[in-house]
């Protein structure tokens, strides 16, 4: 399947240190395993690459000859998502793998032996969870930065 990354998205992922090959790997795996969130044609998939979790937000365009993925955004975090703590309200997302509505909830997340709860989209059925872009690029990045920065 073809993967299209618009220039403005390329710039963002470049800044975030994400390689195009990683994005391809995430989309390929999600499309074959069907493990992803879907909402009105939008897809959110993730894959652990090295010690980071890479997320890709993409649309599937069905063309005449072949379908291709158009990437809306991509982001990463190193914090490890553990078990679901609670599931509150509906999120609008569906867990494609379970074909169940996924909820907004909280997940225990661990980094460098610290365990805290953080908001996430969760599927109560398979127990999978996804951190959203705002959280990964703000709060989680700040936490990771705390540890990273202290190395210097």
């Amino acid at each position: 399947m073809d993967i299209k990354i618009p220039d403005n998205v390329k710039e963002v992922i470049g800044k975030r240190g994400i390689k195009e090959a990683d994005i391809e790997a995430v989309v390929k795996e999600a499309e074959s395993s069907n493990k992803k969130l879907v909402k009105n044609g939008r897809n959110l998939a993730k894959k652990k690459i090295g010690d980071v979790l890479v997320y890709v937000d993409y649309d599937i365009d069905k063309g005449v000859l072949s379908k291709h993925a158009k990437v809306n955004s991509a982001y990463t975090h190193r914090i490890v998502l553990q078990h679901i703590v609670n599931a509150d309200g509906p999120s609008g997302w569906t867990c494609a793998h379970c074909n169940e509505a996924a909820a907004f909830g909280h997940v225990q997340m661990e980094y460098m032996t610290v365990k805290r709860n953080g908001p996430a989209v969760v599927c109560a059925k398979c127990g999978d969870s996804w951190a959203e872009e705002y959280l990964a690029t703000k709060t989680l990045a700040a936490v990771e930065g705390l540890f990273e920065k202290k190395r210097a």
Partner: protein
Amino acid sequence: MSEKIGETQSLCPHCLRTIPADKIAENDNVYLVKTCPEHGTFKVLIWRGVEDYRDLQRYACVFSPPEKIAVQTKGTCPEVCGLCPDHKQHTCLVVLEVTNRCNLKCPVCFASANERYKFHPTIDEIRKMYQTILDYVQHPIVVQISGGEPTIRDDLPEIVKLGKSMGIDYIEVNTNGIRLGEDLDYLRRIKDAGVSSLYFSFDGVTGDVYTKTCGKDLLEPKLRALENCRKVEMGVTLVCVVAPGINLHQVGDVIQFAKKWIPTVKGIHFQPLSYFGRYPKVPEDEDRVVLPDLLREIEKQTNGEIRFDSFIPTSCANVHCDAKSMSVLLEDGSLLPLTTRALGPPRDTKNVATKTRKEICDLWRYIEESVSTSSEEELDGTWLGFIERAKTRYLTISAMPFQDVWTVEAERLQGCCIHTVTPDGKLIPFCLFNINSLDGKTLYRHKVF
């Protein structure tokens, strides 16, 4: 088994002549072995743990030399200092001495306060020293006003204001705190004048420690000073000079004590005792607390809360000059180190020097900027809460074993980033400036002050 693992230059403890020195690994210790043609051979313990000594090399940074220097003579380190073209690292912290008088007379004193010579510069002489700093050091400029005891000067607020008005970015004051505990108004005035934090000598948590280090029990006055700092919200780094048989057994207690004073206390700086100025006898190996000894004691006395490998070199000075850890105070009262050797050296050691220097000025700005302020999340038990704590409830624990005439290595001097400014327009590595021979002769201190 004895193996030569390096060579450098050092000084003869008797005549201060520059002499070659070998680094010898023996029984898992590292020794400096040096011979003066006139005064014989000296063998001095500098490290315990040969593997550790070597391993730290991976933290070495790419130096960024000073852009401007006062001395143009090459190849004469450490005899013609100031800085010179052979110096490898720029200035991160400038020590500015404003007096050598003191309201105490400690048996162990760097500055040999109150002895032999008098140094008490006028405002004009101080202006000249600030100007030297501005001429040679890049921003942000961090100055530590030191002594003697700077707070014996009633014009300290003016000295601070002068520095700030001339363009010094950050001023801290090195103090024994005695006056600050008695005179809240004076503390307020130096704060309002622009002092950002105090470097506050605090050798232990019981009175007997002070009887040994300062000649009298100063615990109460120290606590009063801290109380006053809390009142005026003056940030404090506790400076603890560590000596075996005096307070080495209290390093854990000092850490527990500091926790209770967060956020007034921001950090602890341990200085293994070096033999500068006044000291009673020729140091033996067992009188030495080398850096790894201190870190192991910290691990032992905190029951592993802060570990040996929670400490990393700042990578700004020579890797054997310092070690630093940073921890967040968690809700349950324990410290969580954010630093660990397990993470390995910083990826970008190239600019680490500027980073370290900036760190003093805007330590947590990065974090504040990266967190969105509008959040409906509850803070307790969340990552945002964690970041909030990290911004306000943290403790830095650092250590720097200053070099004395026994342990001095040219290698460490040349990578030094902590420099004393002199009235004759020079910047001299702090250790080198203070080093004195067995009979009290110095290379620099008494010549210029």
